[in-house]
C-alpha cells in the first residue's frame, strides 16, 4: 500500500507491503513501532533512531501527533487513505455550525434566526477563563438556528448557531468538505 503524507511542509512517499516492510521514497527503511504503556503512544525505532509519538487526534485525512513534545500535523495527500473517513459526517447541504470552542458563559448573541450574515461576522461572545472569545460566522448565508441566549452556560463542542448558504451561493459546484 502506497501513502503520500505531508508533515509541516515535507512530503513523504511511504509504501508498506503485506508483510509490513516499509519503503521511504522507494528506499527500504527499518521501522519498529510499538504501542507503549497501553496508551495512544508509540515508540518508533526508525533505522534504530528512537522517537516517542503520541496520537492526539485523527480526522478525515489528517492525524495530529506530538513528537518529542512538539505538535505535528500529518496530512494524507491521497484522500482515500484517510484513517477517519467512515466517521466524519459531511453536511451535503453546506450548512455550517458554530461550535463552542470552550465551555463558558454566553455574554452576547449578535444574530437572530433568519438574518443574513457574511463570513467573519460576529455571531456571539463567550466568556471563558476570564477571557472574551468572539465567535464568527464560518460562512456567508442565512442564520438557520440560534440555540443560545445571553447568560447561558454552554459546554465545549455545543452547537450554538447554524448558518446555511443562500440559494445562489449554495448552487455553485461541490460543497466544501471542511
Amino acid at each position, binding site marked *: *500500500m502506497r501513502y503520500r503524507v505531508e508533515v509541516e511542509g515535507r512530503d*513523504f512517499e511511504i509504501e508498506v507491503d503485506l508483510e509490513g516492510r516499509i519503503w521511504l521514497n522507494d528506499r527500504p527503511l527499518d*521501522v519498529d513501532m510499538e504501542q507503549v504503556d497501553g496508551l495512544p503512544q508509540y515508540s518508533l525505532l526508525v533505522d534504530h533512531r528512537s*522517537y516517542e509519538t503520541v496520537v492526539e487526534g485523527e480526522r478525515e485525512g489528517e492525524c495530529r501527533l506530538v513528537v518529542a513534545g*512538539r505538535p*505535528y500535523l*500529518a496530512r494524507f495527500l491521497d484522500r482515500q487513505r484517510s484513517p477517519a473517513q467512515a466517521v466524519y459526517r459531511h453536511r451535503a447541504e453546506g450548512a455550517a455550525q458554530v461550535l463552542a470552542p470552550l465551555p463558558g458563559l454566553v455574554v452576547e448573541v449578535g444574530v437572530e434566526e433568519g438574518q443574513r450574515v457574511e463570513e467573519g461576522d460576529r455571531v456571539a461572545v463567550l466568556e471563558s477563563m476570564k477571557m472574551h472569545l468572539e465567535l464568527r460566522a464560518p460562512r456567508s448565508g442565512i442564520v438557520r438556528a440560534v440555540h443560545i441566549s445571553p447568560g447561558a452556560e454552554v459546554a465545549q463542542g455545543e452547537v450554538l448557531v447554524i448558518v446555511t448558504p443562500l440559494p445562489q451561493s449554495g448552487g455553485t459546484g461541490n460543497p466544501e468538505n471542511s
Partner: protein
Amino acid sequence: MKIRKVLIANRGEIAVRVLRTCRELGLETVAVFSEADRESLHVRYADEAYCIGPPPVQESYLRGDRIIEVARRAGAQAIHPGYGFLAESPGFARACAEAGLVFIGPRPETMEQVGDKIAARRVAKQLRLPLLPGTEEELDDAGLVEAARHIGYPVLVKAVAGGGGVGIRVARSEEELRSVIPLARREAQAAFGDDGLYLERLVERARHVEVQILADEHGHVIHLGERECSIQRRHQKLIEEAPSRALNPALRERICEAAVRLMKAVGYVGAGTVEFLLGPDGDFYFLEVNPRLQVEHTVTEAITGVDIVKEQLRIAAGRELGYTQSDIRPRGWALECRILAEDPAHGFTPSVGRILQLREPGGPGIRVDSGVSEGMVVTSYYDSLLAKLIAWGETRGVAIVRMRRALAEYRIVGLTTNLDLHRALLDSHRFFGGQFHTRFLEEHFARSEPEGEQCLAAALTAVLLDWRRRAGARVGRSEPASRWRTLGRWEAMGGRGW
C-alpha cells in the same frame, strides 16, 4: 498564637505547595473548594476539606465570610491565602483578625498602604527610591490626559488597586490614551472593585527585576536576593529566574538595599516582593510591592535553600526569622517555566479538557510543583496554570540545559499547553545569552522549528496506524490489549480474587 491547624484559602498548585510545607511542619490542614474542584489535588491532600460554593470565584474562593466560617468550624488558627483571590484583601485580613484568626500575610494597614499603587509610589518617593515619571494622585479622565503631557508618551495606564499585570494598557498618543481610559476603568472596576487609574512612563525594552523580602514582627527584615521575570506575555510572567543576569554585584547590592529600606519603612511583616524595572540604560525604578507569596518564589527557594512558606508560617506564629542576612548564601542558578493550559499558536487562548496522560520530568536539579493529576478535568473557571517546572544548576547554562531536558521529558496529553513555546524560548540564542526584555516574547516568539526526522516519525506513525487498522481488519489481527481496557475490565473483576 500557637498555630496547629491552617486553612488554605486557595486551590491548584499553590494550595498544594502550601499544604506540602504544612505537612512537613506537622500542622493540620483544612482545604476549601468550589463545586468544580471536588476532585482536585488540594482537596485530597488536606486533612479536612469543606465545600464553599459554586464554581464561580465570586461565589466560592472570594467568599471570605464562608472561608472564615469554615476556619472557625474546623478549629483552624490561621488562614494562608496563597496568591490571587483574597491574598491582597485588607478587608479579608481584618475579618480574619476579628474572628480571632491569624491571616498569614502582612498587616491590613500595610496591605492598604502598598496595595494602593499611588500610595506606594509616595512612600518610595519619600525614601528617595528611583521612580518612573508618573501620576502622584488619583485623577479624573481629564487630569490623566493633562498629566500624560508632562510625563511624556508612551505611557502605561495601570489600576491603582491592581496587581499581577492585570489590566495594564499602553497609550502611545493622547488620542490613544483618551480611548483607553474608559476601557481601563471598566476593567479595573471589574477586576478590583475600584476604577482608580494611574499613569507611568513606559520604558521600552526594560527588564523586570524583583527582590524577595522576609520580615518578622520583631523588626528583622532580610532579602533573599532578586529574581528576573522579563519573559512575559501580555504583562503576565512566563519564565522567571534567579539571580538576574542583568545585575552586577554593585547594582544587586543597591536594589536589594532599596527593597529592604522600603519594607522597613512601611513596617512590613511577612514575605513580600518589591518589584523594579531596569531600563536599558542600567537604571532601576521602583514599580510596586506584592504583599504576598508569589508564583515564582520557587526559584529563590532553589538557590537559597529557604522554604519561604515555612518562613511565612513562622512569622505568622510570631517567631523570629530562621535566618539572618548573612545566613543567606545563594548557590547556583534557577529557572521556572509556568506550564499553562493555553494555545500560544492561537493567541494564548485557554484550553480545557481532561488530562489523558501526564508524565512529569524528574532527575537531578528538577522540581515540579503541580496542581493537576492524570485524569483530572481542567475547567474554564480558574486560571490556566497547571504546574511550575523549576530547574536548578550550578550555573545559568546548566540550569538552561536542564530545563530543556526536563521540558522534553514532560508529557501532557489531552490539552494544548505552552510546553512547546517554552522549548522554543529556551532554545533561542538570545535567551541563552540573557539578552531579553519584557517584550522579548512578543518580538521573538516562534514555535519551535519542525525537525525533519520528527516529521518522518510523525508520518510513519500516521501511516502505520492506518495500515495496521486495515491489516487488522484483513487478517483479524488486533493491537495488544491496551491499558484502558485493562483498567476498564479491572473494575468489574470483583469475582476474580487476586
